[in-house]
């Protein structure tokens, strides 16, 4: 055994059997799922937690005195506590449950920024953002006359941190930056960047959608003001997400949507809003989804984010090496610091054709622009093929990916 193999084995996780969806065949082949950056598969425990809730505990939360409502509330608020611990937030009041990263970012744009930002002030983002960390700011700028400013990236898909630092001026109202790029896998040095922003009292929102399932996130250590992510990319159900917000900022923000649950008293001559975090959670929430998300937190923590990160780093290294060994394959996104994602192009095969041929061999990858069209424009490609990893992937998956790409090359030879 080579040294590299030993190192890999030490880090390997054996969790595949926890994921029932991974045992199925697709087009006659055992499924190889390499699209976790779009949405991750769910372990048994999450699926069972949701089922248990539906079978025994379902009722509306924060409303009834009856037993089921009490159990539903306990389960829902228990998940909030788990998420608070998961992020190392100072208080559960800082954990706003949303439908996902997109809603979390829109909430900050409309509730935190819109009432305070002036025409001519700036929202600073980077060139590698997902559309959900671009479009909410464009809408805000249209509404307020603020300006959207974009920090550049280099040919490896890394943020130009020097340029970003120069763009951080007193004109910037808020910096909104991805922790990990969904299209390129680049990990941004957000801790250091946040410290630069803090020196100038500029608030920072971190889009953590691609970070949370792959690395330990500590909002106190990062010192960010807002941290947004989705449940379904971290083994939880779709339609769930979190906005972490610093309590002092959330306190001063007006509600995002009006309705039930976000109020204390409603009278026609005036309404008193509820306390944090309920002020931002109007209407009956996605209770079962949040219960599942709480279970996903338990699952990730039982394995340990550090172990998961080590396993995925070793696997990413193996995948990148194997892909680079294919003649005619071009890697897109080769940053020094990366997590779980590799984009690529093969010969002049269009990514969609590649995706179809791989799917035919049971290998699921994402193809297209990955909701990051500015990144595609930067690399002057219409789209890429993207293989993304999670804790349940292994070397066999990578070998199957490589074999499937070679088959595509045969067909297009």
């Amino acid at each position, binding site marked *: 055994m080579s040294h590299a193999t030993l190192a890999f084995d030490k880090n390997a996780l054996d969790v595949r059997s926890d994921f029932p969806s991974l045992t199925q065949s697709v087009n006659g082949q*055992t499924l190889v799922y390499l699209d976790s950056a779009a949405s991750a598969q769910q372990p048994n425990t999450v699926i069972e937690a949701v089922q248990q809730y539906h079978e025994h505990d379902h009722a509306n939360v924060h409303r009834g005195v009856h037993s089921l409502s009490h159990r539903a509330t306990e389960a829902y608020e228990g998940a909030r506590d788990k998420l608070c611990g998961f992020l190392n937030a100072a208080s559960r009041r800082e954990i706003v449950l949303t439908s996902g990263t997109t809603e979390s970012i829109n909430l900050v744009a409309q509730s935190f920024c819109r009432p305070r930002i002036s025409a001519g002030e700036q929202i600073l983002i980077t060139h590698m953002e997902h559309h959900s960390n671009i479009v909410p700011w464009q809408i805000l700028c249209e509404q307020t006359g603020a300006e959207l400013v974009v920090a550049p990236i280099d040919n490896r898909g890394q943020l130009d941190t020097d340029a970003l630092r120069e763009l951080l001026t007193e004109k910037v109202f808020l910096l909104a930056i991805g922790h990990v790029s969904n299209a390129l896998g680049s990990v941004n040095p957000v801790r250091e960047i946040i410290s630069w922003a803090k020196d100038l009292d500029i608030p920072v929102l971190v889009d953590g959608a691609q970070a949370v399932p792959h690395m330990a996130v500590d909002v106190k250590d990062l010192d960010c003001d807002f941290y947004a992510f989705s449940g379904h990319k971290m083994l939880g159900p779709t339609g769930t997400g979190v906005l972490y917000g610093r309590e002092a900022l959330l306190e001063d923000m007006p509600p995002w949507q009006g309705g039930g649950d976000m109020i204390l008293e409603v009278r026609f001559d005036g309404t008193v809003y509820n306390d944090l975090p309920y002020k931002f959670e109007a209407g009956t929430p996605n209770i079962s989804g949040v219960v599942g998300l709480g279970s996903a937190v338990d699952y990730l923590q039982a394995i340990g984010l550090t172990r998961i990160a080590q396993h995925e780093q070793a696997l990413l290294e193996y995948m990148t090496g194997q892909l680079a060994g294919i003649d005619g394959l071009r890697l897109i996104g080769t940053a020094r610091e990366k997590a779980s994602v590799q984009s690529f192009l093969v010969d002049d095969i*269009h*990514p*969609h054709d590649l995706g179809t*041929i791989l799917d*035919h061999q049971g290998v699921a990858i994402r193809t297209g622009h990955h909701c990051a069209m500015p990144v595609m424009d930067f690399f002057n490609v*219409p789209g890429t093929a993207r293989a993304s990893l999670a804790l349940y992937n292994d070397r*066999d998956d990578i070998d199957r990916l490589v074999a499937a790409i070679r088959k595509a090359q045969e067909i297009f030879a």
Partner: protein
Amino acid sequence: MSKLAELNTDDLKDLYRELILDHARNPRNFGPLRSATHRARGANPLCGDTLELYLELDADEVVRAARFEGTGCAISLASASLLTETVAGLPRHLALQWFEQVTASLTGGRSEFDLGKLMALQGVREFPARVKCATLPWHTMRSAFQQQATTATTTTE
């Protein structure tokens, strides 16, 4: 490593027939058309692909020339290439009938026309995610005839 089951590539070969690959590699009538009287842009929001379709109609509403440009997968390029060959020389109403017949045949229906070379696109019927790639150029052509200012998308209602 687990032993792979024997890979059945018949469907794939049916999708990527030689004629399709040939038109994708060497699309016919590719490039702008200065004399165009009608044009439209087609976009597939799923993948970001776009194509520009140009038609030159004469006074009798006969398609004198059809050209296209843009980026796309093998299926959409071949479909656009075959479209330009098919509709050149046809009166407008007949070209629109081809739109109906081709899109119907690609979305599970039957065509009353002898589709000829266009039969090569039939492989997409086994790949639901790819049907829109094949129909996009045809929807774009319909938009061009209607001179819609908006961008055609791959909605196949």
